[in-house]
């Protein structure tokens, strides 16, 4: 969402980049020869890991985008609950916390198998850039993308590196 806060910079961006894969696009397969990929979110299930490896294989520069991708952040809080395994996670989420109709997703193929421990992106693949923030502020994204578009190795510093 904070990407949308880029406001008019989005218009500036539009003619210079080709958006080839995104949750808001109807593209099923991650394309090849991608120049830059902003990866959001921590890795929680086997699909995420598979996807991360695919992204790494097909992308020149991978950016861990936001605190979840970099630290695990709130999505990794389940690690410290000591739930131990995915069954317990599902139990907590779908049964204990449910206000009505407690039921665990049972059908195969609906919910990808959860991994035991939520991981930041760089634990699984090589990450070229880290864009911190929860969410990363639009100004920070803009600064990063402008440098990258100008052909530089983006460098952020000071408050632009702040978590949270």
């Amino acid at each position, binding site marked *: 969402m904070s990407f949308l806060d880029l406001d008019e910079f989005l218009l500036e961006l539009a003619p210079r980049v080709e958006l080839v894969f995104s949750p808001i696009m109807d593209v099923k397969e991650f394309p090849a020869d991608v120049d830059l990929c902003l990866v959001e979110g921590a890795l929680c299930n086997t699909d995420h890991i598979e996807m991360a490896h695919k992204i790494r294989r097909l992308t020149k520069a991978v950016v*861990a985008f936001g*605190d979840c991708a*970099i*630290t*695990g*952040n*709130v999505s*990794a*809080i389940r*690690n*410290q*609950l*000591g739930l131990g395994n995915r069954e317990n996670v599902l139990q907590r989420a779908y049964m204990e916390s449910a206000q009505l109709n407690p039921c665990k997703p049972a059908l195969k193929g609906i919910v990808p198998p959860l991994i035991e*421990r939520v991981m*930041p992106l*760089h*634990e699984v693949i090589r*990450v070229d850039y*880290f864009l*911190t923030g*929860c969410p990363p502020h639009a100004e920070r994204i803009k600064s990063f993308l402008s440098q990258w578009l100008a052909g530089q190795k983006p460098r*952020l*510093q*000071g*408050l*632009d*590196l*702040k*978590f*949270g």
Partner: protein
Amino acid sequence: MAAKTLTINGRQISAAEGSTVLKAAEEAGVEIPSLCHLDGVYDVGACRLCLVEVKGASRLLPACTTVISEGMEVQTGTERLIKYRRMTLELLFAERNHVCSVCVADGHCELQTLAYSLGMDHVRFDYLFPKWDVDNTHSLFGMDHNRCILCTRCVRVCWHIEGAGTKNVSGRGGQSKIITDLNAAWGKSDSCTSCGKCVQSCPTGALFYKGSTVGEMVRDRSKLEFIVNAREKKLWVYQD
């Protein structure tokens, strides 16, 4: 008082005899990062962030406990030091559960500030995700051990300034924990005077005023300095 002349990062400065390197540097406008140092209480040299290179010394020395000497040559920001400081911060972030986005001290946290000022954009060590308690039994304050970095500032202000001795450290190594009395619930403490000095001293969001939510825990260290100065230098009138 006699003065000593020394160089910090190649610049010649002078400071009062008996000053620490940290103090001399601060007076000269050179910032040395630190987490366990707190003006007004004794130093313990524990966080290792203020380590500096001193010419002729075989090891890195903590600026907070190293007393200046004549002709001392100090380097405070070499590549090696910056690398170590960054790793020290990474170790801290990985050790407990420092989730800035939901922390009461977000934006007012010394750990967080050091992380971005030292360019720590990610942590290369495994996050340990330990399970630590939150003590919310006190009527005014709370303590979230998940955010504690064991700097022992609270222990020192409680003993050295307030004189209550309520807080101490139990266990050892990674299992060390800040305790209240005999590891009692804070709210049940016989010795706590609820003075709030520990809350003022905490560099992270571990100690907080009850009711503060994300980013609201702002501290006023000048109160601690005031009371120390008041007692030691008889300066009983608060000055801005």
